[in-house]
């Protein structure tokens, strides 16, 4: 029953420094996977580049990263870029970004529901209808009682999932809320250790039904780190990133040995924030 499908928005958080064809592939793979389960309908993809306050080594200004992501998604009819996270002056936990987009989705959904409603007496155009015309009571798509709540799921690669195990990088309560209330779609290469990683964590195991593992059979290891390395060495990055992104990088001379040195020696924002917090002595495993 197509009306019973859960609507899903895929949210990808990350540096996107720069965005690559691999990042874009994650969305395609996740959408195909969720559609094939028959239970979900992916309605949107959101790329949310991290703010500069993340302080990762080599991270160039958010303005450029957002612009490149927008260039990359120009030809997509469902994936878009959201710069809310990147505009925040302080680093934001991923959970907060998820909550923000979830809230946005819910309020948008309520608005849509109101617009779709076709009550017996409707204001506006319908007033002009003949009095004895039969008006449908049920809304054209669905009724609010039956339709399930749309979800925002975190889209990531296995490296992000496995980073849950890095001490002080994530708060355990955040991880719990992410997998319990939202869900993960994790893309990994064939022959990975992700299932073992989930098995070894009680929290992840408990909510494993909300962690969707998608295998990427077509090996596609285009990491941003490698792209930046190639650029420093004057090597071509054509066909690894969208052409518009490549042209933008070239025009603005974005990546160099100097840019790679940015934030060298600086502690990553989440590590800084959680270092003193005693709660984080709880381990994932």
């Amino acid at each position, binding site marked *: 029953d197509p009306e019973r499908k859960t609507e899903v928005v895929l949210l990808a958080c990350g540096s996107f420094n720069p965005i690559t064809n691999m990042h874009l592939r994650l969305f395609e793979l996740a*959408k195909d996977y969720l559609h094939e389960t028959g239970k979900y309908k992916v309605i949107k993809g959101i790329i949310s580049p991290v703010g500069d306050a993340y302080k990762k080594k080599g991270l160039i200004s958010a303005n450029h990263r957002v612009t490149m992501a927008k260039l990359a998604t120009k030809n997509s009819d469902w994936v878009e870029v959201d710069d809310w996270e990147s505009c925040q002056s302080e680093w934001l936990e991923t959970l907060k970004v998820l909550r923000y987009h979830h809230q946005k989705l819910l309020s948008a959904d309520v608005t849509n529901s109101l617009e779709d409603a076709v009550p017996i007496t409707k204001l506006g155009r319908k007033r002009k209808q003949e009095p004895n015309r039969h008006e449908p009571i049920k809304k054209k798509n669905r009724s609010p009682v039956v339709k399930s709540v749309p979800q925002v799921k975190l889209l990531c690669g296995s490296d992000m999932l496995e980073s849950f195990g890095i001490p002080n990088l994530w708060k355990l309560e955040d991880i719990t809320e992410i997998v319990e209330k939202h869900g993960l779609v994790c893309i990994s290469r064939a022959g990975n250790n992700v299932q073992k990683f989930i098995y070894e964590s009680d929290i992840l195991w408990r909510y494993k039904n909300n962690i969707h593992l998608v295998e990427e059979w077509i090996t*596609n*290891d285009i990491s941003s780190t490698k792209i930046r390395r190639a650029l420093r060495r004057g090597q071509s990055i054509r066909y690894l990133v969208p052409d518009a992104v490549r042209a933008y990088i070239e025009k603005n001379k974005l990546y160099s040995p100097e840019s790679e040195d940015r934030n060298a020696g600086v502690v990553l924002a989440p590590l800084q924030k959680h270092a003193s917090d005693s709660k984080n002595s709880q381990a994932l495993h």
Partner: protein
Amino acid sequence: VRMKSRIPVILLACGSFNPTTNMHMRLFELARDHLHQTGQYQVIEGIMSPVSDNYGKKGLVSARHRVAMAKLALETSDWIRVDPWESEQETWTETVKVLRHHYNESLRVFQSKKEFMRNKHPTERSTGESLSCQQPVLPELKLLCGADFLQTFKTPNLWKEEDIKEIVEKFGLVCISRAGSDPSQYIQESDLLSKFQHNIFLVREWIQNEISATQIRSALCRGLSVKYLIPDSVIAYIAHHNIYTEESERKNEGDLLQPLKLHNTTINPLSD
């Protein structure tokens, strides 16, 4: 080494290109970077040469489509082009013959350039240009391939020994391999290949990007997305002409590849 004294090189890639993927085009970029970084070469052109329909490979769609898709894929490249000559031949053409054809073509271009230069009135040459700078240099033509292609030299009856010899001796190979695989050992194990190893350039692709056309076709048949693996224009073309289907995958099923049909009396050239 100044750019002017570098040896000009043309890269030729032969294959099914069924369809052309981002990985195919990456091979050219990698090869060019590698040759430039040796300081000895200047890559002036890349040629993609799709095989003709009578190669007889399973799932091979018509050359008309494969050439059209390659053209679309290469639209944004300013140095790589598609050449349909091989695909237009009535019979399947050995790779060495394709190399010879393109070499002769470049020779023709070279000779007409020389002619043009010789006939140029002395006053047309700008001051400071010496005669040596004016002489066009005959480019070298090299076969661009992946490491798996190199390994096919071992397949019984697929290649003639004298063809392999001519390819590595007269032309040269630029062979791209993925991180973790090392074809140099394979070259050492072959007397023929080790003799000409100076003419075999091994390039490591550290950014794994193994987009096989077979996987692309499989994904397409299943209605899965291949966006960002092959160019958007090629995706649109495939959809518009409904090129890859279960039926197209069955084409040539059970048939022998044409070179195997021709060479079935030959002994494996590279075994001892």
